[in-house]
């Protein structure tokens, strides 16, 4: 107790859950710019379906925090800066025409006359026991489209810094959160606690340095990669773990720089394998200078290519587990 208190006083770090980090980001941006507002199902009086917007309605009122009827959010807001919450990104499919055809393409079609400074945010990917229609990962779908920025935070600092950047960006940003991470506490540095703290969109972060293999991941699986790395280090395998943070535009340079050091690459994601994030990374590596540094083909660790089943044992085996990452690393290193 005393030790941790001393640590706290020394480093200025606090522990913040991802949920609270997102809440802080929105609170700060709502305060900073009165054109910013939040709309979505149950974001106001219910405090948010996942409590991400807790307290905001009490503080900012009906005008800035708007409960929408069950009608997936699709609006053009002349001069305003909306944050549109999808209760989950699965529901965004109902509004996907608006996200792509009205939001993503408009700046280009109008040759810059019409900006769309909108953030689409909400939980993405698998949860726990919510079955096939509520578990899809949309990273690849949205990242396919020019005109969108697609962001996928992992920890609290990511969540806060990236959401603030997304809100301040004059372009449509798809912000993919993860429901299972909402309640997870992470350390937040003093710098990250500042109201001006932002993380640039389009830059990945090396979460753990290593020499034998590069693990690239986003969202929840960054944590899995770090856990796998902790196990592998006992066997003398040092993994470098890269947190993509942004899916589009992807920071390929960071991956290449790491790969040129480790000569081995494993991608880890929760989404389906075909046409996915890992597939894109493979293609980009092949086209770039780092290809010649590969000592073995890139390995993709992905969700199983099936709709998500309900039964727990089946669900557990539909997504990458830490042992799958460890297995894949060893296969890639041929050990």
């Amino acid at each position: 107790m005393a030790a941790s208190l001393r640590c706290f006083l020394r480093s200025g770090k606090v522990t913040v859950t991802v949920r609270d980090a997102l809440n802080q980001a929105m609170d700060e941006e709502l305060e900073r710019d009165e054109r910013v507002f939040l709309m979505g199902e149950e974001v106001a009086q219910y405090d948010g379906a996942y409590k991400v917007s807790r307290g905001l309605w009490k503080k900012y009122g009906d005008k800035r925090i708007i409960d929408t009827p069950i009608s997936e959010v699709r609006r053009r807001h002349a001069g305003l800066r909306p944050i549109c919450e999808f209760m989950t990104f699965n529901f965004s499919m109902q509004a996907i025409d608006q996200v792509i055809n009205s939001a993503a393409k408009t700046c280009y079609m109008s040759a810059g006359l019409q900006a769309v400074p909108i953030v689409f945010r909400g939980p993405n990917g698998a949860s726990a026991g919510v079955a096939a229609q509520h578990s899809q990962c949309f990273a690849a779908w949205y990242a396919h489209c020019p005109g969108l920025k697609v962001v996928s935070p992992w920890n609290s600092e990511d969540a806060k810094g990236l959401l603030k950047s997304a809100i301040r960006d004059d372009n449509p940003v798809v912000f993919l959160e993860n429901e299972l991470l909402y309640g997870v506490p992470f350390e937040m540095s003093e710098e990250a606690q500042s109201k001006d703290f932002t993380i640039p969109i389009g830059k990945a972060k090396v979460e753990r340095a290593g020499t034998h293999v590069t693990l690239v991941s986003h969202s929840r699986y960054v944590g899995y990669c770090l856990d796998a790395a902790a196990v592998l280090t006992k066997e003398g395998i040092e993994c470098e773990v890269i947190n993509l943070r942004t899916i589009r535009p992807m920071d390929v340079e960071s991956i290449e720089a790491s790969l040129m050091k480790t000569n081995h690459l494993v991608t880890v994601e929760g989404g389906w394998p075909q046409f996915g994030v890992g597939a894109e990374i493979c293609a980009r590596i092949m086209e770039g200078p780092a290809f010649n540094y590969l000592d073995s083909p890139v390995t993709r660790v992905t969700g199983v290519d099936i709709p998500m089943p309900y039964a727990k044992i089946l669900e557990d085996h539909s997504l990458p587990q830490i042992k799958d990452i460890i297995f894949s690393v060893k296969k890639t290193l041929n050990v």
Partner: protein
Amino acid sequence: MKTMLAIISNALCRMTGRNAGAQTVSEGARVVVSRSFADFTPQATFDIKKCDLHRLEEGPPLKAELTRDQGLQYYRTMQTVRRMELKADQLYKQKIIRGFCHLYDGQEACAAGIEASINPTDHLITAYRAHGYTYTRGVSIKEILAELTGRKGGVAKGKGGSMHMYAPHFYGGNGIVGAQVPLGAGIALACQYQGNDQLCVTLYGDGAANQGQLFESFNMAALWKLPCIFICENNKYGMGTSVERASASTDYYKRGDFIPGIRVDGMDVLCVREATKFAADHCRSGKGPIIMELQTYRYHGHSMSDPGVSYRTREEIQEVRTKSDPISMLKERMLSNNMASVEEFKEIDVDIRKQVEEAAQFATSDPEPPLEDLCNHIFCNNPPLEVRGTNPWSKLKSVSKT
């Protein structure tokens, strides 16, 4: 007959020494004796068709006042749109315009009437049959035609094409049927949020009227009392499907259920104007949204690839042209009330033809956008970025100018 009267009248002026006032004798009128402006009726009142009402006790007035200046302005606007669209037809057949081209001729009274009753600071969004509104919202004929021909002088620098033209307070031009309606409701939300007393005119067609997203928009607009005028331009056909074959209820002005509605003669610019004024007052007074159904007609097919006669008869088209053409209707009204002369209208026609011709010249001679522009404007206010070309060695540059 009218020329005869003009000659007699002017002769009388000369004989009696009456001061005929300042006159400008234009080129075309040189050989014709022009009448003094003092001879024209400055203002007249016209009976307009009564609007069918839904959930409203009172509707727009049954009479409309028209000043000479207004009349000439509406005429000019409608005739410009007409000639511009016909020019587009010509250019399309010459293959100088490609892709989609949905023409508005026949429906001019809608665009002209609406613009006459809203402010430039109000907002407007429509679907793909958008050239008329692009013009009434302030874009020049030149920039519209050049956008159709895909040149760098086009309003969207050639990047958008027929369905994607924009201007301040005009949000296009939208290709996906019905998608503009939630957007329009959103713009109305922004007006309400900013408390600026502005409203949004959100247009859609009889085909889009059956889209689910419209009803979602109606719900939210009514729930939050958004200042939105939803306008259904019912031109009787959704592509090749007549309204009777598409809609369980063709009373489009009633489809908003809990939202009040008016059904308007969309071929009469005065009717459209009065109805829109009524609707605008309704919105601005905080009563919430309102629906207008404009009964109108398009002479062309759905688009340039549709001759427009396989699902309707030539006789029907001809009948509308002779009995209900919006431009003829206005012209006849003004002539029979001595508000303007045949020569004046001719002058305006000649002037418009000249402008459209010049614009077409520009649109055919202006260069296409430079290849350097290919990847620009993916984002707004963004640092330059690299874009992958068709092959891995092709690295293109994208900048976003504000």
